[in-house]
């Protein structure tokens, strides 16, 4: 049985202009020690999907339906107090902004220790010792003196490592990383991705990686779900997805990746024409059809269901791209 199961989850936000439907009927499952990538453009619902797991969406305005189970336990049915015990312990989150996600008033050692004291009832001294080990785990040199430093004394890459150390302090079952490398430069990105891989191997942590960077996906994810306008449009193991993308949107995203040819100026970087549909509308049609080069009349007649296109490969398209493709490979 999978570790995390999300079934038919829809998330909407009540606004003055009505309900904004950010996620529409998402289902996903996550296995132990699996790295799953959620990808898509800004506003496609990937962050909302992931943040609905630890219920980190604004409680007053969020309307959530569907079920989310972790080890068979329904997270949507937990009280707020029970949920607080889950956050940081069973499910933890690494946010996008390493520069500002640490409390400026306390040392990083204290901040790593506080989550341990909160969830594992460690003493201050024991928490401090574990903080040193955790900083070592995320590859910070000289951790014993680093724990006495304040966030402003660390670089962005180091702060992101501290954030990861805090997130994995209690050996969570699921780690949600929201664009963890976006704010970092490329060499530090590679280091952070290595830490994730290492954590998965050593602690068996399952990771949900939210990203729009398909290069990152190819680098470390096992499986990827491509989202468009609040729905999954394609889901497949990463090698399969890059070798045989079936949904025209996925193909468009892959073509938009810079390659050696575009870098040298021999080929123009391809973009997907058009705009993401506004979140208020939800016609019974393929949401991508207005931008799709392969769209035909039946695309706007009914919403295409997610259908199997080979082993563990799902795509929601009536006119999928042919299985054989000789384009950009990761």
């Amino acid at each position, binding site marked *: 049985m999978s570790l995390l199961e999300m079934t038919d989850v829809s998330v909407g936000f009540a606004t003055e202009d009505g309900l904004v439907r950010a996620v529409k009927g998402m289902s996903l499952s996550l296995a132990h020690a699996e790295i799953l990538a959620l990808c898509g453009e800004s506003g496609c619902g990937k962050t909302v999907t992931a943040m609905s797991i630890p219920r*980190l969406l604004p409680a007053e305005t969020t309307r959530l339906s569907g079920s989310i189970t972790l080890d068979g336990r329904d997270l949507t049915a937990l009280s707020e107090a029970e949920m607080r015990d889950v*956050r940081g*312990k069973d499910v933890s989150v690494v946010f996008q902004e390493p520069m500002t996600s640490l409390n400026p*008033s306390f040392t990083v050692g204290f901040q790593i220790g*506080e989550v341990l004291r*909160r*969830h594992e009832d460690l003493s201050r001294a024991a928490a401090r010792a574990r903080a040193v080990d955790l900083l070592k785990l995320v590859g910070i*040199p000289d951790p014993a*003196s680093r724990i006495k430093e304040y966030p*402003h004394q660390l670089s962005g890459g180091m702060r992101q490592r501290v954030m990861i150390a805090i997130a994995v302090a209690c050996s969570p079952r699921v780690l949600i990383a929201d664009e963890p490398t976006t704010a970092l430069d490329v060499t530090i990105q590679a280091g952070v991705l290595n830490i994730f891989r290492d954590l998965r191997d050593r602690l068996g942590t399952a990771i949900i990686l939210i990203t729009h960077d398909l290069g990152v996906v190819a680098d470390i994810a096992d499986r990827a779900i491509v989202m468009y306008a609040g729905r999954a449009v394609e889901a497949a193991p990463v090698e399969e997805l890059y070798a045989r993308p079936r949904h025209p949107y996925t193909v468009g995203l892959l073509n938009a990746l810079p390659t050696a040819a575009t870098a040298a100026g021999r080929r123009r970087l391809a973009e997907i024409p058009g705009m993401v549909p506004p979140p208020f509308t939800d016609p019974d049609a393929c949401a991508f059809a207005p931008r799709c080069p392969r769209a035909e009349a039946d695309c706007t007649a009914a919403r295409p269901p997610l259908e199997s296109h080979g082993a563990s490969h799902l795509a929601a398209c009536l006119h999928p791209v042919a299985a054989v493709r000789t384009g950009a490979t990761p």
Partner: protein
Amino acid sequence: MTEQVLSPASPPSPVPGAPPVMRRRRTWRRFRRRPMAMAGLVLVTGFLLLALVGPFVTADPTSQDYAATLSPPSPGHPLGTDDLGRDVLARIATGARTSLQAGLVSTLLAMVVGIPIGLVAGFYRRWLDPIVMRLVDVVLAFPFLIFAVGLAAILGPSLRNVIIALSVAQLPGVIRITRGEVLAIREMDYIPAAVADGATDPYILFRYILPGAAGALIVQATVAIPTAIIGEATLSFLGLGVQPPTPSWGVMLTSAQQFLSQAPWLAIWPGVMIALSALGFNLLGDGLRDVLDPKEGPR
């Protein structure tokens, strides 16, 4: 480390790996480098010494000597004597004690009551905040001194009532500053990060928001102390505060009025003291604000 290359004037930041300099000592070093802050510290220390030690080494501030009334400064009476022949230096020293009590106790009271109210109002905005803030607006609609004078008039003249009146008059300012800080800090990225780690509301309030607001609150306190010192002097000057013969700088100013042409020192000494003590706390507060903020980085 590029920072060092770009600005050679700035002192080297602690070398990674070397044992970090004790935080307190570094703060002191940064403080010492600011002349205005040091001047404030000297003034405040002098004021505290005068209030704490002064009354023990000077003459009895209430003993009268009708043979030497309104005498100018002399070796026997370094600051002269007043209309009843009382030693002005002794009265200044005892008056410092009155001012200190009024300034510190009323500010402390306002902080102890106001900070929790401001924290909760800013954090639970839905129902508590509008009520608290409208009450604050009502009080703030009155000028500080008018409100304090009104309260003191209702409560009756005594040092205790002056302190109560001043702290109630300071309260809305403290609440408003605290709430403003809470509103700003709760939008920081590290608040949702703390929620994601399973932190409870009280934990976030006291570990995340209060320390962030501490800088602004210290500044508010150092503005409130001189305001309260001046407030006490004003209330006492108007006869609504400390009653003669207990010395207070405000009371001394009142009686000095009649003798302004014969014995100007009677007005000058308490006036200078009020000004210097208020200035001292203000300078100290500015210095502390610059130095205590951990976001400023080592300087």
